[in-house]
C-alpha cells in the first residue's frame, strides 16, 4: 500500500456486488416461473439418436424428424437419448434440454404462432451432428 486511500475500490466493489445481486435475483425469479410446468400440458416423448429425432404423442402416434403441434396448447417434452448425448433445441421457443441416455429431462412450452420452426441438436454427437435437424410444425 502506498499510503493512499482504498475507498474508491471498495465503493466500486459494492456497486458491482449490487449489480450481481440484481442479476441473480431476477434470474432466480424468471427461472422459477419458467420451470413451473402447467398440469394440463400434453406429454410428448422425445428421443434423440444418431442422427435424428423421434417424437411420440400422448395417443401413441409416432413421428420422425417432424413434429406437428396445435397452436395455443401447452406441451411438455420428456427428452431422452438412445445412444450418445444430444441436446433437444427449438431455438425460437427457447427450448433447450440435453437428451441423455438413461435420463428423462423435461421442458415445456405453448406454441403461440402457427408456422414452421427448426428443431436441432445442440450437443456434439459425432459425424452428422451438424445435420441432426427436425421441423416443428405448429398448426392452427
Amino acid at each position, binding site marked *: 500500500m502506498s499510503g493512499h486511500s482504498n475507498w474508491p475500490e471498495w465503493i466500486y466493489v459494492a456497486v458491482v456486488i449490487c449489480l450481481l445481486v440484481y442479476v441473480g435475483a431476477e434470474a432466480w425469479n424468471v427461472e422459477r416461473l419458467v420451470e413451473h410446468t402447467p398440469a394440463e400440458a400434453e406429454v410428448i416423448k422425445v428421443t434423440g439418436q444418431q442422427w435424428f429425432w423421434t417424437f411420440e404423442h400422448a395417443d401413441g402416434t409416432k413421428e420422425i424428424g417432424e413434429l406437428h403441434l396445435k397452436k395455443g396448447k401447452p406441451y411438455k417434452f420428456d427428452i431422452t437419448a438412445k445412444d450418445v448425448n444430444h441436446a433437444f433445441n427449438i431455438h425460437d421457443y427457447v427450448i433447450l434440454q440435453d437428451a441423455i441416455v*438413461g435420463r428423462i429431462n423435461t421442458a415445456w412450452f405453448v406454441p403461440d404462432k402457427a408456422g414452421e420452426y427448426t428443431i436441432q*441438436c445442440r*450437443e456434439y454427437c459425432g459425424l452428422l451432428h451438424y445435420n441432426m435437424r427436425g421441423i416443428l410444425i405448429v398448426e392452427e
Partner: protein
Amino acid sequence: MVLELQKPRPIWQIMFSTHHTDIGLLYTITSIAFFFMGGALALGIRAELFLPGTQIIADSMTFNRMFTVHGTTLIFLFLLPFASGVGNYFVPIMIRYKDMAYPKLNAIAFWMIPPGGALIWLGMADFTWYATPPYSAIRAPGPAADMWIFALKILGVSSVLGAINFIVTILKCKHPDLPLSKIPLLAWSFLTSSMIVLVAIPSFAAALVMLLTDRLGVTGFFDPTKGGDPIAYQHLFWFTFHPEVYVLVIPAIGMMYEIIPRFSRKPIFSHSSGVFAFVVLSIVSFSSWAHHMYATGMSFTEKTVFMIGTLAAVPASGMHVFNFIATMWGGRIKFATPMMWSIGGIALFFSAGAGGVANAAMPFDFITHDSYWVVGHFHLFVMGTIAFGSIGFLYYMFPFITGRMYNETWGKVHFIMAFIGTVMVFFTQHVLGLYGMPRRVYDYMPLPEYIVMNQIASVGAMIIGASMVIWLINMIYSAGKGKEANMDDPWGLGGKYYFPHQAKNPHH
C-alpha cells in the same frame, strides 16, 4: 541469464539444461510453435464456415478432428506452457533465488509436453476437447481417442509437477528478507494458479482413467447401458476445467500487473488488493463448475447454487480491472507494444466478463448454451485476455531474452490487426449464438443472418492470421538482426522501471 540468443550456445546445451531460464526458453518456444499450429487449424475452420456447404474441408469427420485438436492444442500446448515459461523466467528472480526449487523436476515437467503434443497431433481425436461420454466411451474412433486420453494424462502430470515446483520455490526458497506479502504480483499469480492446479487436476485425472477403462470395455463408469452415469464425467471434468480457466487467466493478469505499472510509470494502485483478488479467485473458482451443465437436467436448487457461485467470481475479477485502471489513472503512459496488448487484453477481459455475467443467469443460459455465443464468450477470455496478455508479455521479454529490440512499428501493427480481428470474430459469434447457431458444426443452414455473421467472423480470423505472420517475421528477424536493446531501459521509461535486468541468475 539474459542475452539468451546473443551468446550462441549449441542447442543441446539448452535442451539438456536444467537452468530455469533455459527451461523457460524451451517452454516459450514450444508453446509459440503450438500456437501457430493450433491457429492454422482455426483458420481452416473459419474458411470452411465462410459459406454454408462444403468449402475446403472434405468431410465432417476431418472438421470434427480439426476443432478438437485446435482446442486441445491451444489450451494445453500453448496457454499453459507459455505461462510456465514466463513463470520459469521470472519467479526465481522475483523471489531472489538462484533457480527453481527442483531443477530436474522442472526439466521433466517440460519434456512431458512434446510427447503429449505428438500424441494429440498424430491421433487427431474427434470427440471435442471435453470428450464427453457416452460418445467418447462407445463411439469415438480409436486409436485417436486413446492417444488423446494418454496425451492429456501426460500433460496433466506435467502441470502438477510444474505446480509443485512453483509452490515450493515461492514458499520455501524466497529470500528471507522478502515477506510473502511483498513478492511481486506476477509471482503471486503463479502461487495461486499452482494451488488451483493441485486441487483441480486430480478429478480429471481420475475421469480420464475411468474413460480409458470404459473404452477398453472392462468398466462402465460412464456407460448408461452398464449402469454408469455420463453426467458423473461432466462433473469430474468441469470440477477440473472450470478452475483451469482461472489457472490460465491468473498468470495472464499477473503479466499485465508486470507491464502496466512500468509503462504507466507509476506504482501499482494497490498491491494488497491484487493479492486479495488472486486468492479470492483461486477459492471461488471451485464454486462454479456446474454452470456448464444447467441444461443436463439439473434441479432448480442446483442451478441457483451454481449461479451464485459463478457470480461470486465477478467482484474479484472486477478488482483486477479496477486496479489496472487506477494504476494507469494519472500516469505518464507510454503506449509501447507490450502496453497496448495489455490494455487491449483488459478491455476484452471486461467484455468477456460482462458476457459471463449474462450467461450465468439461468434463463439466459438456455438461449446461449452450446451455441456460438459460448464460443465467442470463452474465446474472448482465452484469445482476447490470456493470449493478448501472453503476446504482450513476450514483447516485454523480448529484449530480455535476445538482447535486441523487436520492430516497434510492426509490433503495433500486429496489435491493431489482431485486436480488430478478435472483435470481428468473437463479438460476432455472440450474435450468431443469439440467432441459435449451434457450436461444433461443420455446416449451417443457409439463413442470410448466419451467412453474414459467419463471413464477418471468417474475415476477422484471416486478419488475425495475417497479424500473427507479421509477428512471427518480426520476432525471427529481430532476434537475429534487430537493433541492440539498451538493457537498462529498453523502452526509454526511465531506467528503474525495467525489472528483469536488475537481477541476474548465473548459469550454475
